[in-house]
Structure formats: C-alpha cells, structure tokens
C-alpha cells in the first residue's frame, strides 16, 4: 500500500505530468473558484498537505530532501503561498457577488471601521516583531547552517543547487543559453513587472479583491508567479537530483541512474531528419527554420492574437501598449514551451548559433 502510493507520487513527479498537472490545478481552482474558496475546501486542502508531508517524512529519501536545513523554509513558503492565494481568491469571490448585487465590497465596509496607527497598528507590529524574532532565534539555534566542505575548483557538489529561492532561475538555465536565461530573461521579469502599471491602466480592482473584473490580468500573474516561479522551485528542490536528472520525490538519489538522452537541435530535425540532407555550413541557412519560427512567434503571432483571443485588450490598450503586452506574454510563454519541447522531444535549441553565442 505504502509502496504503491509512493510509486504513484513518483509517477506524478515526471516533469511533463507534474508541469501539466500544476497548470491544470491552477486553471481548475480559478474556474471552480466558488467551490475552491469554501472554508471546507480550504481546510481539506490544508489537511491533505499536512498529512502528505507527515506521511512523506516517513520515507528516508523524502525526509533527506525536506529536512535539509536549506529546504525547511520551502514547507513554510508553500503553506503561506497557498493560504494567501486562497484568501485573496475567497475575498474576490465574495466581492464579485457583492458587486453583482450592487452592495459595497468587503474593503469598502472595512473602511468605515478605521483605527489609529498609534497605538493599534504599532502594538500589533510590536507583537509580530517579538514573535518572529523568537521564531528566528529558535530556528537558528536548532537548525545548523548547512556549511559544506572547503571549496575546491575540481569538485562540484552533485547535484550543485542554487539556494532554494533561485531554483526557478537555475531551471531556466537548463533550457536556454546562459546569457539569455541568466541575464536577459531575469531582466525582462523585472522590467515587465515594472511595466505593468503603464501597460495596464484599467482602474478596476483598485483597492478591492475581484476576479470577474480582471480575469486575464490575474490569471497571467498567477501563471507567472505560481507556475513559473513557485512550482519550478518545488521542481528544482524535490525532483532534481544528482547529475541534474529527474527523480521522483520518494526515489533514491542514485548518482548512476541511467538516463539515455540524445538532444537534437531544430536545425538537425529539419535538415537531416525531414529533408535527408547534411547540415548546411553557413549558419544563417542552417538556422533558418528556427529563426523563421521565432519571427513568426514574436512578429506574426501578436497580430493573429490581436484579431482573435486578445481582441478586447487590443482595442482597449491601443497598438503600442498591446505590442508590449503581447511581447512580454510571449516571452513568458517561451519558457514553458521550451521546457515541454525538451522533455517531450529532447529538443535542445530552436536556434543554435555558436558563432554568436546565441542559443534559444
């Protein structure tokens, strides 16, 4: 029974299944949000998470990962992220019903019950400060800092993992050229977040939680944060093992786990497999299929989207702001697309131009 359950969760740890399931769970909880935000559902989900975690700790391999001093904050983070997403969505659902009936929102009602900063807020903050301070003291006393052996250039720890909060970024490095995944994409994350107030000037949702008034904005934000950041942190922590291979959460980290992978580039698939020709010598010809694909993705796809799915946004935002929005969205979507292509077809790079260190 125990083995069968562990085998089931190991099977869910397959990256393709894990990723699609995470997306499906996010979509389902947004679509059936009325059911998802019931108190009973929330308590049941929390109970499931706690039972799963405690049961998992009985397994030696799961325990080794989850109880590593580095990784302990993750358990807390997962509960907090889940709780606050649930809470925000719950208030959004209540507000949407209230506004549908023409009644004031939860936040508007609370506005009439204002209290003073001093002493009400400051006292609350002081108590929080002491509690968190005490927690940190106990934590630092009981969990030793994971100091490892002295650094040696010839020895890399196996697996060599970044701090847990950067594991999403490290995962990105598996799929793109270092300067893209390490410099360009993180910059786009920061610039894109900074650009949101300028490209999205919709005043709805200011000062109150809502979902029905902002479905697109909230879904894209939650996809970027929960899927592309939080779920990749989980993937990097629990599913990446020695040699950066994939392991199930209850699987022993065998350094010699055999993983036959032969990566192929899009150019090789196109020229060698489909056309049966040798790879062209000149890089522009060789990478033409990938380059055309990217031109279509960033150049043509926004135009198609503007006439179909994103028509409303295009009309509301105007040409320039729509272009920026579409570009940022497509940049964001490039990561999951590339991950799934790698996992499903061993596709290495869409465009590989070593001549210019450009590998996409």
């Amino acid at each position: 029974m125990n083995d069968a359950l562990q085998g089931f969760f190991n099977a869910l740890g397959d990256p393709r299944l894990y990723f699609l399931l995470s997306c499906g769970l996010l979509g389902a909880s947004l679509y059936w949000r009325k059911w998802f935000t019931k108190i009973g559902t929330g308590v049941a989900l929390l109970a499931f998470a706690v039972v799963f975690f405690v049961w998992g700790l009985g397994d030696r391999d799961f325990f080794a990962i989850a109880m590593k001093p580095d990784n302990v904050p993750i358990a807390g983070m997962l509960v907090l992220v889940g709780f606050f997403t649930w809470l925000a969505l719950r208030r959004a659902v209540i507000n949407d019903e209230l506004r549908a009936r023409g009644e004031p929102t939860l936040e508007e009602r609370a506005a009439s019950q204002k209290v003073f900063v001093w002493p009400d807020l400051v006292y609350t903050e002081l108590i929080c400060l002491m509690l968190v301070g005490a927690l940190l003291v106990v934590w630092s006393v009981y969990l030793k800092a994971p100091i490892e052996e002295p650094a040696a250039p010839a020895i890399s720890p196996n697996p060599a993992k970044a701090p847990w909060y950067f594991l999403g970024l490290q995962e990105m490095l598996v799929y793109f050229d270092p300067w893209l995944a390490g410099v360009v994409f993180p910059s786009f994350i920061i610039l894109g977040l900074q650009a949101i107030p300028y490209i999205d000037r919709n005043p709805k949702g200011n000062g109150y939680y809502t979902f029905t008034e902002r479905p697109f904005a909230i879904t894209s934000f939650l996809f970027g944060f929960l899927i592309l950041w939080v779920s990749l942190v989980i993937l990097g922590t629990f599913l990446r093992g020695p040699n950066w291979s994939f392991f199930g959460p209850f699987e022993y980290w065998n350094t010699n786990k055999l993983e036959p992978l032969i990566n192929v580039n899009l150019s090789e698939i196109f020229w060698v497999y489909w056309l049966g020709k040798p790879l062209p010598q000149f890089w522009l010809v060789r990478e033409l299929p990938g380059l055309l694909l990217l031109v279509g993705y960033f150049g043509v796809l926004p135009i198609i989207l503007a006439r179909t799915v994103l028509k409303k946004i295009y009309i509301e935002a105007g040409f320039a702001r729509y272009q920026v929005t579409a570009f940022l969205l497509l940049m964001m979507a490039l990561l999951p697309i590339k991950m799934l292509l790698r996992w499903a077809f061993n596709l290495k790079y869409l465009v590989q131009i070593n001549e210019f260190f450009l590998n996409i």
Partner: protein
Amino acid sequence: MPETQGSPYEEPLNEYRPTRRGFLSVLGLAWLAFTGATAATLAAMGRFLFPNVLYEPPQSFKAGYPDEYTVDVVDERWKAKFGCWIVRTNSGFYALSTVCTHLGCTPNWLASELKFKCPCHGSGYLMTGVNVEGPAPRPLDRFYIGLGEDGQIMVDKTRVFRQDKGQWSLPGSFLEFKVA
C-alpha cells in the same frame, strides 16, 4: 561688495561670512579632495586585483609515460591539479578540459555510463568530449597534447582546440600512439 557695518549686537564680528566666490572655491577644494580620496581608494582596490604572486599550477605539464595509461579509460589523475582529463584510445591520446561549456562547472566522469555529466544543469558529454545531453552548446575543449623528448606526454593548456571551430583535426589536438 561693501562691508555692512552694523551694531555688534546684531552682527557678531567673528562670524564667518563667505562670499559666493569664496564659498565656491572652498567647495571646489573639498570636492577635489573627495575625488582624490575616492580615486586613491579605487586605485588601491584595483591594485588588489593584481597580486604580486599567483599560486597557480603551470599551464603546461608533463603527464607521465604513455604506457602508464590504459586504453579506453578516462584518466582523472590530473583533474584536481591541472583541470584536465587524459583519455587513451586504441589509436592515441587526447586531453579534455574539465570545464563544462555551458556555465563552467566541473562535470563528473561516470565510468559505468561512459559519459561526463555536469551536476549543475545536467549537460552530458561522451568520452570523446562531444555534448549530447542538456544545455551545453558545444563539446568540451581539448588541450594541446604531444610527446616530449624524454618520451613523456606533454600537455599545454594555453593551446585550446575547439570542435565547433573545426580544430579537432589540427595537429596537436590528438597524439597518435599505436599499441605496440
């Protein structure tokens, strides 16, 4: 500018009353001093980046006699000191760099699977150094390898041979050595 002579009760005589010109020249002096101090600090920090003595192993080394190596085995004895694997095949020797071409971690040689595997992002290389797995964009670099006058193998890490530039066919990237 005429000096205003007021009563001592209104204008204390010893009070410092700068003119615009005087104030600017004092400010300029202070600014110059600050710039000078900053420049000196930066220069000292820059000097710190170029130490007098560098405890680095030499870039070229003697790697013993050819018969100390086994055919089809990746020899790891120079990995820690010189960052180099020496591989012997049926027809000769080549020296591989231990720096992953993706982001520069040190891969591990997995003898049971006959491949180099990087622990950072999962790049994998065959025994020849050719990349087949993960994000590594090109094969591992090879170093110059040759036979010295005393019959020992010589490796020169300053001469790098890159496969993607077609340099693996150049003399020096491979040391011909038939089994006697």
